[in-house]
């Protein structure tokens, strides 16, 4: 699977005069996983959505594989990028097989190829073949999220974007999903950007952790450096995550 690096060069984004991102510059190396961490409204989702051109920067450039996203054909660009969101966004009127195979259907692949790839992908995310003919409403939250991950990987994406993919799951299912995803990412080595509030999830899944505050990158660290970092903003985030509840 050929994967691409992602670069944000002095990216700003303003909505109705309110700055959401302010001069963000960031490089995500090909084949690595980077977690975008920060409180709600810090701009991490907006930054993620710029990679597949769901949002366009007010100024600055987003580069995927060294090419400016703004200059690319948006349909071709998006077909090369996997996207997973918290709400899964599964198509409720389609079976799991059709949901998983949608990227291939759009690419004009044959029915046989779609069927066999869907089976393979379900196996990869730990679902049995029985799920193929089911509809999203017949699945549990965890199963739906597995289908969402399988769908994002169907077209062997060059970049994988995940926006709080496990945010709506219970802690046990969430842990299972994290284990599954880490295993998948290690095997696929696809460049991945994952938005999360959860520091533990970021450290477990990502090679690098980027902390955003009010639309500005305030920390960009290797996962191993996070806990002992002298960076004030990161120390505050770590402390908030590990706050003890006194009796």
């Amino acid at each position: 699977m050929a994967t691409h690096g992602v670069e944000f060069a002095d990216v700003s984004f303003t909505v109705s005069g309110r700055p959401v991102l302010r001069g963000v510059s960031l490089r995500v190396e090909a084949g690595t996983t980077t977690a975008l961490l920060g409180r709600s409204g810090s701009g991490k989702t907006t930054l993620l959505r710029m990679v597949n051109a769901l949002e366009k920067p007010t100024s600055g450039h987003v580069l995927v594989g060294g090419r400016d996203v703004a200059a690319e054909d948006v349909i071709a660009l998006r077909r090369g990028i996997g996207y997973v969101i918290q709400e899964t966004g599964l198509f409720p009127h389609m079976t799991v097989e059709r949901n998983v195979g949608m990227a291939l259907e759009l690419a004009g692949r044959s029915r046989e190829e779609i069927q066999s790839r869907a089976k393979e992908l379900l196996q990869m995310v730990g679902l049995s073949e029985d799920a193929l003919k089911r509809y999203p409403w017949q699945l549990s939250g965890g199963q739906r999220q597995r289908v969402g991950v399988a769908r994002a990987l169907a077209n062997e994406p060059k970049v994988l974007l995940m926006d709080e993919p496990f945010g709506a799951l219970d802690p046990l299912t969430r842990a299972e999903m994290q284990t599954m995803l880490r295993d998948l990412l290690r095997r696929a080595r696809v460049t991945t950007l994952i938005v999360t509030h959860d520091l533990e999830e970021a450290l477990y899944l990502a090679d690098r952790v980027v902390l955003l505050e009010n639309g500005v990158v305030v920390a960009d660290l290797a996962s191993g450096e996070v806990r002992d970092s002298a960076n004030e903003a990161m120390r505050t985030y770590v402390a908030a995550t590990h706050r003890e509840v006194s009796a």
Partner: protein
Amino acid sequence: MNVFLQRYGAQIARLTFEHIWLTASAMLFACAIALPLGVLLTRRQTLAKPVIGVANVLQTIPSLAMFGLLLPVPFLGERAARLAIVALTAYALLPILRNTYAGINSIDPAVIDVANALGMTGWQRLRKVELPMAASVILAGLRTATVTCVGVATIAAAIGAGGLGELIFRGVASVDNGLVLAGAVPAALLALIADGLLGIAEKRLVVRR
């Protein structure tokens, strides 16, 4: 009863056929206009309010007044059936337009987001995601429009467009309740049958979430 049917049976059958023809033609035209227009409004949201407003106004015009207003219009006024179909089409626009717009707009934004992120073109998104997901709501609009049209089509007889209204008007003029019922009962049955059949189709198209 037998004597009545022997006398009026053939006429009831012919006028029922005319009634169906008027309604079906109007529904076809209304669908051809309101479906694409409803989709367009979801893409140009600023147009939605004024366009749906115009359709709303059309709906409020009393049917007899509508037929009267269209009578002097060249080409339409020449043939009563033509005029009736245009008027019925105007009545059928609003429910189809409003439901197409509302049906597509009510789709979970996350689903639309993912459709875009998968690299669907606007047409693919419409065909594969939006229309199937909005189908039951659109069909509900079609159902309302059909029942309205079947009802309003009875008034079309006032301008000589035919249909079951002809029996009703003749019955009223000659104070013959039997004749009124000969027009009203089949018209009511038509409305009930259309409502029932489209209701079944609507239920089948509901997407479970």
